[in-house]
């Protein structure tokens, strides 16, 4: 089994409600964001697009492989889960993750990461970001289901070595792939 996110880069208009809904649901402290929205501006052809990305719940997650205290595990349904109680805040996962998904909390000196709202899903609820998106441009489901349900163009970069589970419906005007741009933007910020 492999769950993953689908994101509609073609229709997303950049309101960032997903980021705040996640932060609110998870009661995250200052500076901690588990879902980020990258703005993509392109002159020719003109494009102004957005990519919302959280943890890609990779098939071969770098966080699981590199965490020195074994805080990360890959669950049967594919969720990459962090046991926050054992996190020592060493940030190894942050530097290992090609997508910058884990987020460090200065206040507690620990790192948080998206679990696809595993608890909410256990109760039959949608992840907070998916439920909050005004444009219904996010979904979490089995990868097979996502790929057949959405007019999706790409699965995020298998060359990252982690085999991410992220299906993106791409704005056709973009000349570069939006997740590449997002990863580059995140790297620049870091």
């Amino acid at each position, binding site marked *: 089994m492999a769950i993953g996110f689908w994101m*509609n880069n073609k229709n997303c*208009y*950049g*309101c*960032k*409600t997903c*980021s*705040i*809904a996640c*932060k*609110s*649901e998870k*009661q995250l402290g*200052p*500076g901690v964001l588990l879902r980020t929205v990258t703005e993509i501006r392109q*002159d*020719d052809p*003109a*494009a*102004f*697009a957005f990519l919302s990305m959280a943890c890609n719940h990779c098939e071969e997650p770098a966080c699981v492989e590199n965490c020195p205290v074994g805080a990360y595990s890959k*669950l049967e*349904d594919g969720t990459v*889960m*962090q*046991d926050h109680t054992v996190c020592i805040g060493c940030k190894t996962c942050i530097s290992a993750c*090609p997508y910058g998904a884990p987020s460090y909390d200065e206040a507690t000196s620990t790192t948080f990461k998206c*679990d696809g709202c*595993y*608890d909410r*899903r*256990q*109760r*039959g609820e*949608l992840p907070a970001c998916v*439920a*909050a*998106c*005004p*444009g*219904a441009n996010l*979904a979490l489901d089995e990868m097979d289901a996502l*790929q*057949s349900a*959405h*007019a*999706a*163009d*790409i*699965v*995020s*970069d*298998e*060359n990252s070595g982690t085999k991410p589970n992220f299906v993106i419906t791409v*704005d*056709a005007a973009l*000349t*570069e*792939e939006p997740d*590449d741009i997002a990863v580059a933007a995140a790297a620049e910020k870091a």
Partner: protein
Amino acid sequence: MTKNSERAADATLTRRAFVGAAAATAAAAGLAGCAPAATDDAPADEEGLPATGEDPYEGAEIFYSTCPPECQHHNLKGYVVDGKLVKVESSELNDCAACARGIARAYMTNDPERLTVPLLRDGDKGSGKFKEITWDEAFDLIQQKFDEAIAADGVESICYVTGSGNFGAMHGPVANAFFAHLGGASTTVGSLCCAGTTASIVPIYGQRFLDCRNQIENSTYCVIWGNNPAISKQGYFQRFEKVVENGGKLVVIDPIYTESAAKATDWIAPWPGTDAALGLAMLKTIVDEKLYDEEFLLAHTCAPCLVDKATGTPVLEAEDDPASFMVLDAATGTVVRHDAPNITAALTLEGTPQAEQYSTEFELIYANAAPWTAEAAETECGVPAADIQRIAREYAAAEHAMIVQNMGGFMRTENGTYATAIGAYLAAFCGQVGHIGDGVSDAGGMNEVKTGAPIPVPELDHKVPAIPRFKFGEAVLAQDPLKVNVLWSMTGSPMTQWPNTNMVKAALEAIPFVVTVEHYLTSTALYSDLVLPCTGMFEMEGVLANARSHWVQLVEKAVDGPGQCKSDLEIFTELAKRYGFGDAFDVPMDTLISNVIEPTGVTLEELKEKKAIDVVGPDYIPYKDGEFLTPSKKAEFWVAAWKEEGFDPIVTYARSEEDARNDNELAGKYPLFAVQQKTYRGVHSTFHALPWMDEICDTEPHILMHADDAAARGIADGDAVVVFNDRGEHRGIARVNKLLKPGVIGLQNGWWEQQGGSSSYVTNDKWKTLGGTHCCNQTLVDVKKEA
């Protein structure tokens, strides 16, 4: 990351795993409407996991409220655990989801930056130096200053101003009642947002704030004129995207390639302030090519109504009957009432004996449109003639065409009233109003539903002069039309939102006693003598039943506000008691709410049970079947109020005073047009200083510049720059690209003093244009690199 240079133009063939293309219809199920439904199948429990499905919000007390600034008024659901508001979500009662700002209401309630006690200025205005005082001291001081003001210069020397930060019934309407009871304090005149709509849609269609949001998805051709609904209608922007998905067109008219333009099929970029000329050229094409809907024009508009050439006014059968317009019956050659049975009204009088004495409104409109050939409009508006003609033809021919005005920036210009009115003309000429999927979309509204005042507002026996809001500084300094001894500012922030900030600042510095009622130490609070901490959403009770929303919403109190903050109602009630009219204010909340909702037909009991009630309905169509709300029940193109103001009573266009193409000193000195942009950070200045917004949005003002204009000034992307003109300066970071019209720069609206200051420091404060439009988007500037 590896870049894929081989990416195909259709964005499907990549080195990556190609996803089996699914039918678009399969995706549609998940895309429709608002939040998708939860799945029925919960994953199976996995033993020993750190997560167990436990709900941290289980057992939380639930409260309902609303997000009440000048926006879509989404219903909000608050979760209280152990006496603390821990989470706010978009409530299930909405027809589209609330945004990040609404969700941030929980943060706001617990924000350590909130004001908690009354603050008295203890340094120069603007210094940020205050000392804490008690409410008793604050009320005593207010009473003393009110008394002194009244004794010296009369009650009108107390001026109160409300903004658009809270459209709830227990705020502005309570202030109106209080200051009327006090004997008639003065206020300001001049609408920052939508004077153009009020001055055009009200006389032409009869009433405004009747919106078409529930018809958007039925539209096949949507013209988004000078506004950016991806931000300002973000809850239901997906409805506009649906128009394109359904095979229709989305035309965005905006000098900036906005979030909305990026999703459109067409981007038309006129020079700021030239929209009326653009619209007149469209109308000329439509008339020249007989693309108008003659049946609709004759049945539902005053196009054939006669205007006397000698007096320049419409011909009425009876002077005391404003609906008694006359037309020429082409069949009999006689002049008859427009609504006489079995007539064939003539649109033009050419070749008839009546032509010497009369014109029809149709003829007057065409005469004003005639100079605006597509070529002339290309020169004036900077839009290719072929594009103007194409969108005119497509709009007229579309099955269901809508013009979305949404109180947009295009009307905040010198010709803004005419620019708004030409949209009303176009829709009526083409029969694109009053039906499924068409109309002229205002921001709104439930304006066909009447509401009441929470506290009756006594009628004054005299008229109190109003101060022009855009020239507030000049008026205060000149004490014309009156002397202001006390200013009471609430639910708004003049220091960020009013034009020409330096003059607003001068006024606040000159007024002896400025009171600001606020959640935070805003830009305006910084320049105040007394700052009163007020309650926010989920911290007080009330009701929201306003023309901006379709819902009557109960405002529930979930928790106490921080510290000693009080609601506007509590503050006014205490003052009312001191002035001997406390009985009018000190009434139970249930009574106040009932007073507001009684005319709507919704009962208090029903509202308490349901929390929010849609009083408009999902299938609402404004001016249904072409029945307008004017006296004649027809679209009345000739506007008496415009003539009374000294302007042409029919839409026309003349180049504005502040235009970079003018051959004058101003245009020579400041060659760039500056327009204001809304951002996802806030609604006007509300939410703007929240740390949560810093985490997801630009953290300082950005100045959007075209690469050509930046290069000419040696400015690169990311440079610190200063935007300036004779009014002032606005600082920010240059964002350089080609996603806007060269010669135009974009300024972000809403930044506080503490964040670098408002873009309003440079904006045009012209008063008075036709209709009294705010001219912030008719502003010339230049930009230089920060020294």
